């Protein structure tokens, strides 16, 4: 049996979602752009999938299907209309799909301004807004931080941004938010919002970029004009339809999960109390599905492998290898040096049980102490 607590990395695909995938790969496999009647039927299913996603996220704009979160993020950042001599304001701890896309803009000559974050991984709004000006054309802030679970109040932030300059395009990476916390996209006011399907108990290789009405993007691929010519290429029909159902289901489970995951977190908190110098990174305004700790004087990667020996799978933000640079987020969180390598991320799914979490909590405490004993300075 595998105790899987790395649901931010990916999730197990649901059986009913697999059936949908199978159906649209083996039975209704027609190209939605072809002119025959079967293709037309598939095209209608694809449109229905878009509507299902829009409804699940209370969104009135367009849904462009992509190959996943990374492509959606890239399309948002690189496809945004630029302004000569303009700048981009970006939360400092974005996912690397956003961060590296923004760095690409920087290489093209645009100024990129990174806003500070708090010690819990929340975007510092004062810092963010102070960086926006009349030359800013793109503002970027993730909805839920993938490493700490911090939920950013993007409604307030984007309102502040628009108040300074109505022309600024506001983009939020929603990969760890959609289906995990309530999202009313029209209310939140983001112009662009990215999704990934494999975080929702659905297939890898599928995602979407949600684009507010009236916002136009420069395509990053060229071809047959699919997705309004913004994301060309034959749609992954099975993935798109499956994702729409998976998202709908995930949204319907948010309230249930909120309650259950809160108990899971409490279980971990109670047991971790006995471990000195072990901090929870984000306690307030945090995704219910993410629980990240930093422990002094241990290597998170080694702890991860020790748990792995017992078939407990957790996440560790980034590689802690001594040969690579300190992970970006660790630097931004301004943690004490003793905690720099000791990050462990636990992320839940509906498949976890309280019994599993209780077991995880015990083994986590045991292995932290054991590891400190083995590797600690004498």
């Amino acid at each position: 049996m595998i105790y899987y607590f790395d649901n931010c990395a990916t999730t197990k695909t649901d059986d009913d979602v697999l059936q949908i995938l199978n159906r649209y790969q083996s039975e209704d496999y027609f190209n939605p752009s072809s002119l025959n009647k079967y293709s037309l039927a598939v095209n209608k299913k694809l449109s229905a999938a878009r509507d299902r996603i829009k409804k699940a996220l209370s969104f009135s704009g367009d849904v462009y299907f992509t190959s996943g979160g990374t492509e959606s993020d890239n399309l948002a950042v690189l496809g945004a209309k630029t302004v000569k001599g303009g700048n981009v304001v970006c939360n400092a701890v974005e996912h690397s799909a956003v961060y590296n896309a923004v760095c690409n803009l920087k290489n093209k000559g645009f100024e990129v301004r990174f806003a500070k974050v708090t010690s819990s991984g929340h975007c510092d709004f004062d810092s963010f807004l102070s960086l926006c000006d009349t030359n800013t054309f793109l503002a970027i802030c993730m909805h839920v931080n993938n490493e700490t679970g911090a939920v950013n109040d993007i409604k307030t932030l984007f309102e502040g941004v628009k108040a300074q300059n109505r022309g600024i395009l506001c983009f939020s990476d929603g990969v760890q938010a959609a289906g995990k916390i309530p999202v009313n996209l029209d209310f939140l006011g983001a112009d662009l919002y990215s999704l990934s399907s494999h975080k929702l108990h659905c297939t890898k290789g599928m995602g979407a970029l949600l684009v507010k009405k009236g916002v136009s993007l420069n395509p990053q691929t060229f071809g047959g004009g699919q997705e309004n010519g913004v994301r060309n290429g034959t749609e992954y029909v099975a993935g798109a339809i499956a994702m729409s159902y998976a998202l709908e289901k995930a949204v319907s489970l948010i309230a249930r999960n909120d309650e259950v995951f809160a108990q899971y977190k409490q279980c971990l908190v109670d047991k971790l109390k006995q471990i000195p110098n072990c901090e929870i990174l984000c306690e307030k305004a945090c995704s219910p599905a993410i629980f990240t700790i930093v422990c002094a004087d241990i290597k998170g990667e080694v702890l991860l492998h020790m748990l792995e020996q017992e078939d407990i799978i957790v996440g560790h933000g980034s590689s802690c290898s001594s040969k690579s640079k300190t992970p970006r987020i660790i630097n931004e969180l301004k943690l004490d040096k003793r905690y720099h390598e000791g990050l462990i991320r636990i992320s839940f799914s509906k498949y976890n049980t309280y019994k599993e979490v209780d077991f995880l909590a015990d083994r986590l405490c045991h292995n932290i102490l054991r590891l400190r004993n083995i590797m600690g300075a004498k």
Partner: protein
Amino acid sequence: MKAIIVRYSEIFLKGNNKSFFESALAENIRMQLSNFSYSLKKMSSRFVVRDFAETDSRAIMDALKNTFGVYSVSIADEVNSTFEEIEHKCLEVSPRAGTFKVTANRADKTFPMNSMELAGELGHSLLNAYPDLSVDLRNPENVVYVDVRENGKCFVYSHVEKAVNGMPVGTAGRGLALLSGGIDSPVAIYMMAKRGMRIRALHFESFPFTSLQAKEKVLSLAGILKKYTMKMSVDIVNFAEIQTQIHEKCDENYMIAIMRRFMMRIAVILAKKNSCGAVITGESLGQVASQTLESITCSSAVCPLPVFRPLIGFDKDEIVILSKQIGSYETSILPYEDCCTIFLPKSPVIHPRLSDIEKMEQALDVDTLVQNAISKLETVEI
């Protein structure tokens, strides 16, 4: 017909046991070319590969160039040894402009012209055919080679590609090499295989202190080395318990020095078990604390077998250059920790004394630790 000429160098100098080296080289060539269809024939002081698909010629040339014992290779056209046929082929392969010379060799002494006459006549024909050519005997831009063999056939070719040289693998005994995953040890393995040694590798993994990716990286390196070593087995020994015990019971600064001795002890047992007569390491004198004279003395003290350290006099940048040539560098620098880096003390002892180490090791049940580690040995055939 296309043929590939395979030349060897040092074997050429061997006396009565020359045929032993030639057979070993032939066997290695067959192993290198096992994925291709071809025929192999020995001629005087060279091998000739024929009957291969022309689309495979580049891949076959590359495989031969990576075969120790091969000095150089050329892809040639094989024609009948008549002046007309040779001339016709020379006109075909010759450059159309620039400086050139013709180099002729005549093993068949019944051929009506001697080498000088043949080269001269062919040079004349080329000059007549291509007015933009000019002769430069000392430093030509192009050379047309003509090799008249004893069997009524002649090779005509225009390029000689250098190969890895060395001695055929399998002609110089067997060695057990410590393979860490860093830059140096693959180069050390390459160097010893180059002198004809059959290599078996030993890797110390340290899961959970290191990741499974670190082990996969070592297996990738072994795969790269197999291009040269022909066969490759990797023994993998988990070192975590030994490290934990040393860390717990010995002076932290002696951690690496004592670890190296455990590695040697395990290497000796596995070497003997696998009929290896030597242990090979990638040490370079003074590169790190564990590679000083005193550290090497301490680790060698538990190794009754000869320890070959082919990189001992190399600078790091020289090793890096070789690593890049071999093709192992990009894999070696992947950022996964190996078992030596994870327990790195802040100030490792640079000049350890053997007597001190022996005293510290009394706190450890050395034999049991070694036996336990070996009992969980995993062997991967690459």
